[in-house]
């Protein structure tokens, strides 16, 4: 049995410290994912991450342990992000925003270029690329996390890559 599974079981039985350990283990991944989705809006990403973890705590009985706990959290983070976007009625899913601002403090030049280019992709493309490349999930896992058909995720990845290539060449 993995450490995650043990911690989840303890958290389910009301052990707040076990849930705290899970948060400490996963916070960087979830916040990093949300920062990329919100185009480096740290405050918004952290608000969404907080809501993500609180929702995860409320719904921890629904975690079946089929995938990793981190992947399950990313699914909640993605749905939280979509809800927030709908609420703000900004940045349509398929029409990228050209005026992205990036926090550049610790990024290398190549990473900075990537983040700038990433910010110009549609959110679903950003999410699919991050899950499949930076987090190493398969297309199937990413489809499950994003609650999208497998074909749609594959085309998001393909289209996102092509757009990135073009953006990074200019």
């Amino acid at each position: 049995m993995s450490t995650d599974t043990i911690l989840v079981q303890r958290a389910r039985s009301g052990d707040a410290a076990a849930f705290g350990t899970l948060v400490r283990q996963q916070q960087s991944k979830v916040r990093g994912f949300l920062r990329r989705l919100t185009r480096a809006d740290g405050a918004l990403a952290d608000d969404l991450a907080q809501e993500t973890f609180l929702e995860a705590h409320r719904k921890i009985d629904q975690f079946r342990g089929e995938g990793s706990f981190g992947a399950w959290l990313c699914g909640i983070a993605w749905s939280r992000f979509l809800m927030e976007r709908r609420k703000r009625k900004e940045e349509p899913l398929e029409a990228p925003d050209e005026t992205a601002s990036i926090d550049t403090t610790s990024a290398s030049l190549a990473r900075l270029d990537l983040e700038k280019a990433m910010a110009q992709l549609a959110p679903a493309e950003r999410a699919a690329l991050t899950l499949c490349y930076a987090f190493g999930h398969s297309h199937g896992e990413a489809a499950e996390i994003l609650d999208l058909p497998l074909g749609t995720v594959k085309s998001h990845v393909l289209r996102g890559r092509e757009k990135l290539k073009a953006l990074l060449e200019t």
Partner: protein
Amino acid sequence: MMDDGHLDALLTAPLDDVADNGFSSRITARVIKSQERRAWFTMLIAMIALCALVPFLPLEEFTHAMVRVTPVIANSGAISLALAVLILTFMLDQRLRE
């Protein structure tokens, strides 16, 4: 010209670590607070349910039974000893916890 290998290398690089800066502690504190709220709410509901049930409880029979049983308990050496052991164990446990 950006080749696929270079793009893959950029994309597969892990995201920058995000420093915790008290984030986990804040979440844990909120979780504990919500658990406490839930416990209070459950207790409140239980109390309300109990209060609603009181008029339907056979209190008279219960009182008669207590009147019969209380002297037996009070005069029993074994029960007194058991109670004393229980109290001493509880006190010792409290001491050890401190």
